[in-house]
């Protein structure tokens, strides 16, 4: 019923998923000290509700949501609050957080809050419960899920898209979650259907993850019209806007939201977490993370407590001696890390470690030869060649006005195919940053 047309452009890099997708999700131990940021989502940081020195139960609230654009943070372990202070985050910025020392001998029983019963709960109840559980988009953006579900009154959801199209190479968390927790995914979908009143729901999976999608379908009860759409394995198939065009045949208008065309995209791991937590009124304490790459000895998917330092995680799985690069997320859009002394947060779906064999220094940048590979590859049908040329001449206004820079979501296809190795994404990000600076400058100048 729902189409499976491929988007225009895109790339097919080597997926490197074989080594992690066959292994079951393994539970991670507690690190000696957990670093739990109060800001793990896009929005306002949570406000701490515990004091330094306090003893907390696993799953109890450490920080409460600060308004609508915020979610609470729960204790990933039973332990003692050692310190509340600023801590480094993966982006390099310092964020408020709580240093939690897990008790070694504790039972680590999870405290539960108010259960949200699917049968009796109203749409508003479910949305509030989603916020209370601290749920954010687990695909990487970490946008508070309840804010997505609470839509303007004049908007209706025609199609709820459960996004299981894990198009980034190396990552297999969504795949394993679908295979191992199909019942959680299905229950999450039912909560989401009730919360949004969506007319239909479809699970979008790439062709190479077919068996995982079928596992979820098999777990769906009679009467739930959950369908799956198996899309071509092509990066960046999982990008929201491209999924919408593939499934609904319409484009999200520039500057608009999916809901403007009646679509709502929820990551499959987020749906699974809703189905896992809401029936018990629990909050997120851990998440499934793919740790992989040539620099990792024991690659696989791990259920890791939130706040586990990356250094601890890498030491636990073992690494090659000549680790040269680590990035969060996949190799196409992943955030490069300068330091391993940062904690795992809700939005981290995986990290990949490369050794010197995969990276021997940046390739020499050649002049653009106008070959058009980037134009063919751009899934947003932009003109990266022209945008790059303008970027190198500092023409940021023309980039935005004439060449639609704002539509670029930095998927990296253009830089991936560029034979001249021009760092196009970096140039576009720099241009966007400059445009933001210009915008704030204009605003302050207009003030009397």
């Amino acid at each position, binding site marked *: 019923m729902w189409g499976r047309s491929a988007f*225009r452009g895109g790339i097919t*890099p*080597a997926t490197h998923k074989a080594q992690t997708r066959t292994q079951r999700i393994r539970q991670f131990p507690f690190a000696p000290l957990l670093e739990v940021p109060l800001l793990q989502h896009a929005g306002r940081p949570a406000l701490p509700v515990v004091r330094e020195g306090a003893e907390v139960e696993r799953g109890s609230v450490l920080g409460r949501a600060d308004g609508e654009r915020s979610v609470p943070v729960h204790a990933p372990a039973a332990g003692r609050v050692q310190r509340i202070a600023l801590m480094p985050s993966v982006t390099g910025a310092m964020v408020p957080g709580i240093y939690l020392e897990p008790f070694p001998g504790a039972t680590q029983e999870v405290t539960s809050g108010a259960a949200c019963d699917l049968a009796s709960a109203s749409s508003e109840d479910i949305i509030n419960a989603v916020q209370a559980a601290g749920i954010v988009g687990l695909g990487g953006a970490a946008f508070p899920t309840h804010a997505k579900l609470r839509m303007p009154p004049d908007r209706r959801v025609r199609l709820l898209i459960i996004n299981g199209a894990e198009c980034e190479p190396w990552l297999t968390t969504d795949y394993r979650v679908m295979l191992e927790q199909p019942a959680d995914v299905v229950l999450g979908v039912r909560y989401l259907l009730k919360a949004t009143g969506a007319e239909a729901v479809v699970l979008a999976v790439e062709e190479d993850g077919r068996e995982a999608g079928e596992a979820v379908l098999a777990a769906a009860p009679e009467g739930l019209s959950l369908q799956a759409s198996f899309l071509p394995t092509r990066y960046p198939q999982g990008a929201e*806007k491209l999924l919408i*065009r593939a499934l609904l045949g*319409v*484009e*999200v*208008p*520039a*500057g608009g939201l999916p809901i403007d065309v009646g679509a709502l995209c929820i990551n499959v791991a987020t749906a699974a977490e809703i189905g896992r937590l809401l029936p018990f009124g629990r909050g997120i304490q851990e998440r499934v993370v793919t740790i992989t790459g040539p620099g990792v000895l024991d690659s696989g998917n791990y259920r890791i407590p939130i706040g586990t330092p990356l250094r601890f995680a*890498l*030491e636990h799985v*073992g*690494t090659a001696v000549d*680790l*040269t*690069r*680590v*990035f969060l997320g996949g190799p*196409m*859009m*992943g*955030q*490069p*890390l*300068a*330091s*391993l002394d940062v904690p795992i947060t809700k939005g981290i779906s995986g990290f*990949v470690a*490369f050794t010197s064999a995969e*990276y021997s220094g940046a*390739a020499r940048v*050649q*002049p*653009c*030869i*106008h*070959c*058009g*590979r980037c*134009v*063919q590859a751009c899934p*947003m*049908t*932009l*003109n990266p060649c*022209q945008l790059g040329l303008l970027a190198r001449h500092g023409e940021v206004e023309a980039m935005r006005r004439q060449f*639609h820079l704002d*539509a670029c979501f*930095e998927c*990296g296809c253009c*830089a*991936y*195919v560029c*034979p*001249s*190795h021009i*760092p196009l*994404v970096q140039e576009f990000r720099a241009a966007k940053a400059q445009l933001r600076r210009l915008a704030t400058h204009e605003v302050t100048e207009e003030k009397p």
Partner: protein
Amino acid sequence: MTLRAPLTIAPAPHVHAGTSVAWIMLHVVIALIPACVFAVYLFGLAALLTLLVATLSCLAAERLLEGGAGSTLADGSALVTGLIYGLTLPPALPLWMVAMGGFVAMAIGKTLFGGLGSNAFNPALVGRVFLQAAFPAAMTGAWLAPLAAERFVTLPEATLAGPFLAPDSGGYDALTGPTPLGDWKFAGGETSTFDLALGFTSGSLGETSALLLLLGGLYLVWVKAANWRIPAAILLTVAICASLLHGIDPQRYPSASFMLLSGGLMLGAWFMATDPVASPLSATGCWIYGLVIGLLVVLIRLWSGQPEGVMYAILLGNAISPHIDRWTQPRPYGAAGGGP
């Protein structure tokens, strides 16, 4: 184990398709090798020297003009220009003219515009068009008969002529018979399709074997080092126009197979019009560009005073390429103007 090594940070994406400018150029060279070998087999020592001097003069000019720190020779583009330039030349052209044209190709065709990636026109054709303007007699007369018996032992007198001491036009006429296109245009003769396809005719080094050039071109398209739409559009346009005209008046207009297989069309369509720098970006743009070049080839060959028009057609195509780019800007996702 404690991790203490410093981490390298670089912006995403952290993986790459693995292609490079040198990779593309290498494939173009590979695709040109059969045609080069065949030219030497056909015309002997003179062809070998012409190719060598053409290539070396382009490499030397590139080194001289852009050299210094971080030489650009390694990207292979000068080598490709040199080979293609050599293939466009008549085999008995005096070597000093070959060297001079090679220098002009790199200096005026490339460096003056800003080097790799900035040339508005195909540099090899700039070199050739310079020779055509400066030495028209030599450029239209220095042909050799294919498979001459003495071709590997003797050189035509013209080849080693000293600068500005080349024989006059009478000297060239003595060398050989005309090219298939010249024969058709000025004498009404038609070469057999079989000879044209295999290349046992006189002509420029790379004008002869349509089949080997086609193979090389298909290889380029297969490894994705050239945009297939450009040769497809050019050859289709020429084939369709020629068929129509031949259908209307077979006496006056040559057949489509003659038009496709003769002259520099194969070399131009697969190797020169596809120069990425001087051709459009988008798929639509490439079709328009190919169509324009194809029409110009037919127009010049059939109705102008010249027997061959591929060179001018491609140069004119290069000139309008930036305008085609402007007309065929892709419509971004989500921008006003309808669905996908």
